[in-house]
């Protein structure tokens, strides 16, 4: 964030977009959506050693009050329908991080008859974190990358060619 100190008496100037983005990236509240093994690593990332609370990220129980959904684990077809429902229950602006190989592309369960190969078949994804399971440091790097993406969003001066966040199935409304 560029601070242009034009008046020495404790006045900072910036753009509205940057302030909005800075507030959003500094308090991403993630919904506890741990499905499988990656959920344990997500808990460790929120745990005492690789602490996510220092980034302002607090786990929340319901999608209605969260703005980040970390899909941690294998998405089965039975669960994929519910994932779409939960995604739509989150209020805008919302972000999705796909954690681990299973939610990126099906992972080592691609031979399975009951597994959805990748969460981006049902919801748009912002950051993909590879690993099986990703270390807490890897997930933290993925979340910092998401924070950098958030800082680039434009809300005031939107136009039709503004880059939009969203994965392969596209635009977020």
């Amino acid at each position, binding site marked *: 964030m560029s601070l242009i100190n034009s008046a020495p008496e404790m006045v900072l100037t910036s753009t509205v977009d940057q302030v909005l983005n800075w507030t959003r990236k500094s308090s991403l509240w993630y919904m506890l959506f741990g499905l499988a093994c990656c959920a344990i690593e997500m808990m460790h990332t929120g745990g005492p050693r690789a602490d996510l609370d220092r980034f302002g990220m607090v786990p929340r129980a319901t999608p209605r009050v969260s703005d980040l959904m970390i899909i941690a684990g294998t998405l089965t*077809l*039975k669960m*994929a*329908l519910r994932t779409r429902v939960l995604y739509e229950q989150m209020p805008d602006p919302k972000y999705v991080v796909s954690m681990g190989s299973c939610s990126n592309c*099906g992972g080592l369960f*691609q031979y399975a*008859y*009951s597994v*959805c*190969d990748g969460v981006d*078949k*049902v919801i748009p994804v912002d950051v993909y974190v590879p690993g099986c399971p990703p270390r807490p440091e890897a997930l933290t790097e993925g979340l910092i990358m998401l924070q950098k993406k958030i800082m680039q969003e434009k809300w005031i001066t939107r136009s039709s060619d503004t880059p939009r966040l969203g994965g392969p199935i596209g635009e977020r409304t």
Partner: protein
Amino acid sequence: MDSTGIHAALRGRFDTAVGELAPGPFEASIEVDASAIEAVCTFLRDEEGLEFDNLSNLSGADYPELERIQAVYSLFSYKQRHSITLRVNADRAAPVIPTVEAVWPAANWLEREIFDLLGVEFSGHCDLRRILLPEDWVGYPLRKDYEEQPDYHGISTVRENLLTMKRD
């Protein structure tokens, strides 16, 4: 009691409904007629000296070349500390096996799992419906001739080959 003694007790009570003791390469097992399985299990649980109070495992396996689906019951007794394996064969075209849920309540979910994945109907079961797969799933996946559906509720199950995609 070892498996010969258990087999002798069963033979004495049920005669030909219970097959020969197959010593097997790894563990001894007894084949039981499907119609007699509930009576055999009740006898094994209640008889003095046998007292098989626990159904340790109930698995199903598909043998298409033998035209049958086999259910394998692994029983264990906490009182006597012995175990035995029973096998029940069902015809693959329309597999039906009587339930042993009344003998051990643990069989309730184990039989539902075999129904879900292999399609074996357990007659007399109080609540025989799918347990692991969604209610509207088509087919029995653990059968050897199972064909996957191309999509489920609009989500495609086709796996693109990423190598060929990249070349294009």
